[in-house]
């Protein structure tokens, strides 16, 4: 039977459906009329869902890292690396979109806010993860050190963007004495778009990571052929 592009697992279809749903209803549903925010409150459906997906990807990366450490099966290390890579991508998108939103509501591209600086520090910690991986040639050593560092990086992320902003002053809702979304920003209508959005973006991120993982696996099967090829090339 011929393969078709529609031959996808159910959760990939679900991610397509939920992301489309979010982007359509994100523009259409009535939102609370709040000063300063105005229509930009709709960014909740796009910017905040990205950050939620980012944190879930980093969580998945930690789970894979622990699985690697307890099994020493390199397939888990590949997973941890790719989940982190997708998470970093989402984080960069989150920083850029957050910056645009901040410019138009708080008045500056970057404000000295505990959550913003925490998010930036998190991204640096995770960029260091990629550099750490890139600096080692030995597969097993790299996997072991990266797994341990990945667990550390996740803990730092929780401290930087979940704990510290709540202890100090922050402009973000739910932080530093500001009311959380649950009080009035996120009324029940908005929840019907926000939560599907989080699930959709997360599943989409898993899909993208899965593609990265599969590419990596194909690549890791190849070296023998490549070595033969280079031998052939040098001898001819």
């Amino acid at each position: 039977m011929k393969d078709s592009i529609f031959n996808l697992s159910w959760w990939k279809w679900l991610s397509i459906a939920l992301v489309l749903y979010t982007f359509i209803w994100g523009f259409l549903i009535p939102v609370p009329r709040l000063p300063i925010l105005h229509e930009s409150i709709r960014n909740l459906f796009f910017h905040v869902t990205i950050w939620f997906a980012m944190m879930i990807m980093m969580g998945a990366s930690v789970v894979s890292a622990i699985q690697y450490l307890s099994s020493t099966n390199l397939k888990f290390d590949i997973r941890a690396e790719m989940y982190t890579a997708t998470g970093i991508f989402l984080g960069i998108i989150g920083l850029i979109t957050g910056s645009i939103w901040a410019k138009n509501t708080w008045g500056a591209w970057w404000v000295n806010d505990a959550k913003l600086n925490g998010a930036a520090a998190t991204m640096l910690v995770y960029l260091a993860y990629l550099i750490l991986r890139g600096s080692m040639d030995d597969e097993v050593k790299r996997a072991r050190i990266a797994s341990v560092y990945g667990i550390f990086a996740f803990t730092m992320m929780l401290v930087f963007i979940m704990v510290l902003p709540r202890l100090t002053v922050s402009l973000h809702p739910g932080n530093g004495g500001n009311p959380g979304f649950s009080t009035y920003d996120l009324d029940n209508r908005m929840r019907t778009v926000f939560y599907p959005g989080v699930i959709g973006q997360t599943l989409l991120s898993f899909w993208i990571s899965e593609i990265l993982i599969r590419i990596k696996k194909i690549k890791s099967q190849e070296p023998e052929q490549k070595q033969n090829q280079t031998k052939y090339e040098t001898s001819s």
Partner: protein
Amino acid sequence: MKRLLSIIILSLSLLLPFHLLAQADDVEMADLMHQNGKIYVVVTVVGVVLVGLFVFLMIIDKRLRKLEKSNRD
């Protein structure tokens, strides 16, 4: 006693988010866009862009399946 009760009820009612209803109408929103339906144009364009991206992702997925199959054989 009655007076005390009414004060308690009044002060409790201040906790209700009535102040949000009061400010509802003077906040500027993109009402015109929703009224004349131009928002649907935006939504349609966003939808088309997304569907395009998803089809692209599906094609990548299929190519990868093909590659995996040829690698296995």
